[in-house]
């Protein structure tokens, strides 16, 4: 039963709260990413699961057993460190074999397992080399190999791809995902790269300042962000978040004053619960269509900066009140600098956030 569960764990360093009341559960075979900016507490949470830090409060439950007091040795977990933590005095093969000493296997069995794992990760040629003599990507694979050579309760990855260049990351992402799916163990990956999280995770837990803001599938956190932070963190280019005054709501259409304009936009029925007040409206850059002329539901903005991105073009536009709007259009649509765009948001991709930053959604 390879599962991980943390219940309201907290980590305090003196007065400083690194992690506050975090709760998460990971099923067998599921990959959960802890995603967030630097200092948000994701690595601390991972270390508490690993046993390298002691939770000040809360429970750490692995494979159904509460493990708060147990040291890492007794938790039967495998971890891939950000700096790989390869033993410099041992060669690659010995590094991979290290966790197996505990199981007191015969030499043949150890070798068999090491070779099997080396083959999966394409390390057979470097088994005799020292860690100092292999490339960065190989070091990464060795660290992963060391983790999967055993049969642990779960896997923990601490920013596994952060030290690789873009190309390597791309290929390693795929490799790791493939390896993990074959092993069906609960896995937690810590990363600050949302692309990594979106591609590798079954579910993502977004953290900020020690708290888990939202847990959901990649699709959920993208399409249904729970609050302003998640909305702005996920998705590139960043979602446009604009302040608006909600005037009224009726028949699925909200009347707002946005960027100095009166706009009517289709909105989620839950918006009806909001009194007329200040709200934040979130619209992703790709959720606009540029209309040819002004209308009831368009937002006028003047194109200021055009960034061609290949198949698409990113346009930085400025509203009447001086706010910034990012719009992404297919490259076939030619926009000139200074041109006034009439942007119509897609009602299915318009998010309303209340005064507390929370999404207003049914």
């Amino acid at each position, binding site marked *: 039963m390879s599962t991980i569960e943390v219940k309201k764990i907290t980590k305090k360093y003196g007065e400083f709260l690194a992690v506050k009341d975090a709760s998460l559960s990971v099923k067998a075979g599921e990959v959960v990413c802890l995603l967030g900016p630097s200092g948000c507490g994701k690595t601390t949470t991972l270390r508490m699961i690993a046993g390298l830090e002691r939770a000040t409060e809360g429970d750490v439950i692995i494979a159904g057993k509460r493990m708060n007091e147990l040291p*890492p040795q007794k938790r039967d977990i495998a971890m891939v460190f950000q700096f790989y933590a390869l033993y410099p005095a041992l060669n690659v093969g010995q590094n991979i074999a290290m966790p197996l000493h505990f199981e007191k296997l015969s030499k043949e069995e150890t070798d068999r397992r090491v070779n099997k794992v080396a083959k999966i990760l394409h390390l057979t040629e470097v088994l005799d080399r020292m860690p100092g003599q292999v490339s960065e990507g190989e070091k990464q694979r060795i660290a992963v190999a060391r983790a999967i050579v055993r049969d642990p309760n779960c896997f923990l990855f601490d920013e596994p791809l952060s030290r690789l260049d873009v190309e390597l990351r791309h290929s390693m992402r795929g490799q790791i995902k493939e390896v993990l799916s074959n092993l069906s163990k609960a896995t937690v990956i810590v990363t600050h790269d949302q692309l990594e999280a979106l591609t590798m995770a079954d579910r993502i837990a977004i953290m900020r300042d020690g708290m888990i803001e939202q847990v959901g599938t990649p699709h959920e956190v993208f399409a249904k962000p729970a609050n302003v932070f998640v909305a702005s963190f996920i998705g590139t280019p960043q979602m446009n978040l604009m302040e608006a005054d909600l005037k009224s709501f009726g028949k699925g259409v909200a009347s707002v004053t946005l960027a100095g304009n009166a706009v009517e936009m289709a909105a989620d029925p839950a918006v009806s619960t909001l009194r007329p007040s200040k709200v934040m409206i979130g619209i992703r850059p790709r959720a606009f269509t540029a209309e040819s002329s002004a209308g009831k539901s368009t937002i006028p903005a003047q194109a200021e900066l055009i960034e061609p991105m290949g198949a698409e073009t990113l346009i930085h536009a400025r509203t009447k009140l001086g706010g910034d709007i990012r719009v992404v259009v297919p490259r076939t649509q030619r926009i000139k600098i200074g041109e006034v765009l009439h942007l119509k948001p897609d009602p299915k991709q318009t998010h309303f956030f209340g005064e507390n930053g929370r999404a207003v959604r049914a």
Partner: protein
Amino acid sequence: MTTTAQFLPAPPLLSPVAHNWKLALLAGLVVSVIAIVLFPARLSLSVVGAMAALVAAAFAVNAYRRRYYGGLLVAPAIAVLFVMNIFPLLWSLGLSFFAYQSNNQSIRFVGLNNYIKVLTNDIAAPANWDALINTGMFVVFTVALQMITGFLLAMLFAKQFPLRKYLLILVLTPMMLSVVASGVFFSYYYDPTFGILSYVMGEITGNQFILMDSKVGAVAGIVFTDAWMWAPFVMLLVLAGLVSVPKYLYEAAAIDRVSKARQFWTITFPYIRGLLMLALLFRTIEAFKLYDLVYILIRGGQDTKTIAYLITEIANEQNKTSEGAALSYVILFMVIVLTNLYLYLANRRNQGA
């Protein structure tokens, strides 16, 4: 490298330009050797000094002209070391080929005579070999004891714990004692009548315990004192190594369920191995040099004279200065052999690692 030296070609050997240091060096050496051989000590020394100054000046001009900053920076150090170390070394070497006695002025070139005398049958020869063996025995024991103790102490102090700062200084203090004081006091502790050691042993065995009487006892006494004084040095070096191991290696090992013993051998030991060898080298050489401690602890009489004591005795009291020099060169030779052995081993380790 951020060197900004200009790549001017060095002046040809014989051109009498101000910055031709090669010529200056050559000339200086030639004149110095002639002076040493021909002139009495005082005059030759002045000549040599003048030559050295000349060479130094040539170097300086050369360096400045070629913006050879490295040279300029290094020059004062080299100068001091040369005067204080290299030059006496060379002189001493030269001296060992002569029979020159420190109170009269006659010099006779005797070639390897002194060495032969020293190494084979001299009046003091049995004492020489005895001293050599004593020194060897002593060195082995004291270095071994120091290394073990130092290592154990380092293991204790490797972690952070409350009051660490105050306890560390307690352990470092023995290194700071004057040799005179510790030597005298340990002879007090070992003293048959008043010493605490004999008192305790007396209570236990009922007899007076005279440590310094037997050869074994005497060596043990010196070994213990010396090891006690210098184990902190080894401790510092090993501690440096222990502290430099990245913490995440131990974390990974914990997760990999590696046993403590194995953790030590595969993670910790490689980091401290180099330092242990360094400590070994330093302490071995220092032990060979040991003169001060023995002088005080023994005050002559017993047969545990070490080489160092013997040499000074020979030189000062028996006026056989050059023989003393020859003897010291025998030691130096051994030291050089040891050093090269160490470097060879260290390099081989590094290449293999």
